[in-house]
């Protein structure tokens, strides 16, 4: 195993991490702001991919699919938060069961609308080959995934840190009661954050779906990974989600390459250790 092996594996791990950042950052925001354990997050991911497929089938445009999918799923998230989650208040168990119930509903609906086949989202031809750097073949699509994650991550960070809306969000995360006292409409913030989280997951779905394929069951496959990102990186922290995603992507990649028998264990065991030491995750805010 030479330098080339390690370099490629690191590259692969980071590109996978980019995908996980997209799906995990949404969950991290939702959890950080609203303390909601959203088990339908994987469904948002998958729905994003399915909506993208429909857009591509009708318009042929992969680029158009991205914002349309994000918006569509954001809408679904919005409705879910407003109508179903808000009445529950802060009750983790009920949230878990409600969101799981919805996950099943989404799964069945997806089956009815799009069918049960494995489908592929075709990446645009421009992204479908590799560039050669030294001896390394780097598939352009993986580079694209990393770039997208960076762009979206930075955009979200800027929105959080530099805008008034972002300040309101951070205030709500830190102390919701105080935020309300200062006149921030925490309900609106919650709704917005939930929709944003869903949109991020959907983006992950479109971009990831091109990479992983789109099929029933993908929702429950990606869900524990999203949680791993959130738990390791910290709930409510965007930067934490980025680092968590990188760690999970690298651990997953190297685990599979080097310790195939323990692959998933090498992923979830660190999760347990981190939670035991710091229940809010590495960079979590409490």
């Amino acid at each position, binding site marked *: 195993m030479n330098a080339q092996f390690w370099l490629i594996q690191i590259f692969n791990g980071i590109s996978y991490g980019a995908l996980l950042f997209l799906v995990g950052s949404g969950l991290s925001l939702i959890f950080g702001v609203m303390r909601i354990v959203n088990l339908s997050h994987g469904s948002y991911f998958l729905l994003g991919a399915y909506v993208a497929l429909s857009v591509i089938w009708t318009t042929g445009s992969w680029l158009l699919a991205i914002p349309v999918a994000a918006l569509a799923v954001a809408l679904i998230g919005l409705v879910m938060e407003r109508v179903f989650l808000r009445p529950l208040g802060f009750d983790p168990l009920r949230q878990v069961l409600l969101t799981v119930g919805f996950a099943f509903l989404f799964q069945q609906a997806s089956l009815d609308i799009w069918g049960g086949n494995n489908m592929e989202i075709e990446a645009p031809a421009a992204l479908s080959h590799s560039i050669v750097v030294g001896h390394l073949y780097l598939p352009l699509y993986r580079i694209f995934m990393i770039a997208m994650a960076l762009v979206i991550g930075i955009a979200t960070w800027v929105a959080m840190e530099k805008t008034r809306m972002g300040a309101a969000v951070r205030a709500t995360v830190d102390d919701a009661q105080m935020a309300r006292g200062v006149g921030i409409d925490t309900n609106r913030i919650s709704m917005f954050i939930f929709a944003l989280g869903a949109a991020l997951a959907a983006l992950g779905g479109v971009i990831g779906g091109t990479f992983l394929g789109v099929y029933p069951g993908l929702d429950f496959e990606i869900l524990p990974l999203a949680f791993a990102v959130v738990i390791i990186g910290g709930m409510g922290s965007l930067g934490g989600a980025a680092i968590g995603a990188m760690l999970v992507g690298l651990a997953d990649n190297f685990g599979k390459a080097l310790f*195939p028998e323990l692959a998933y264990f090498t992923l979830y065991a660190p999760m347990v250790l981190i939670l035991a030491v710091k229940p809010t995750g590495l960079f979590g805010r409490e």
Partner: protein
Amino acid sequence: MSEKAKILTVAVVLLAFAWVVPHTTSFVVLLATRALVFAILAMSVDLLLGFTGLASMGQAAYFGIGAYLTAILATKYHFGLGWDFWLVVLFAMLLGAATAAFFGLFAIRATGVYFLMITLALGQCVWGLAYRWNSLTGGDNGINVTVRPNFGIDLTNQRTFFFMILGFFIVTLLSLYVLVRSPFGRSLEGIRERELRMSILGYNVWLHKYIAFIIAGAVAGLSGVLWAHTNGLVSPETVVLTTSVDALLMVVLGGAGTLVGGAIGAAIVFGLREYLSTIVPWWQYVLGGVYVLTIFYLPTGLMGLPARLRQWRASRTNSTDRPALAPVRS
């Protein structure tokens, strides 16, 4: 309803169940057997949720450990297929308890959401091992358990097997009933209600939770053994996240804190998953709907329905606070 009346009702229902089921079709007997095994798992979840106020999203881990232990002993070592079956039951309960003891060290410090997350992670650890540790667990293929233990009775007869599982259910139910009625059980309920007060009163809250966690692990391990022989196949599907979540739903649906609520919930969930699914293709809407509707309209589960009705009738004009669903400590 008085305590005695409740016990009597449960006894009557169980007797009726034991009488009716063997006279139905083989398929219903099979379904009932499978649901009963999960009812035992649900009881372990109920012990934690309904009585201690801990919502665990990882009970499938101990369930799977019990099941895999049984399968590995049966296929690789030809152990557990005779009278030594009872040893396997014992070992599985011990292993379940030991695993819970180990996991509990990480988990019990957390509460509420964090407890949910960490138990989820622990469950996933076990899943990951089951899925990839091929040499031990057969990986994705799982392990086929094709022979039922033979200790004098013919367990290949579906109805006889049903009675044995029913027997395990009843014994577990009675044991747990005794446990929750004991001072220890009362303390658990106290912790569920007012953890802070209990600790001020001098109770070692952590230890109580820890012990409850271990007992739940043992019971889940037991149900795993029974599952291995009921299902005939142990695979990573046994330990998947959905299993833990289903178990939670069964308890919530039936009524947390009632021990038998889980059995009712198990019957409904299994009825949907394994019966309705063969009749109509849209059964998952019903399943998802059941999850959602339970949360909104049946917070105390089906067992809590009579009480709710009474309350509703009694105070039609006042707006009632949502009756407490075993509040999860946060």
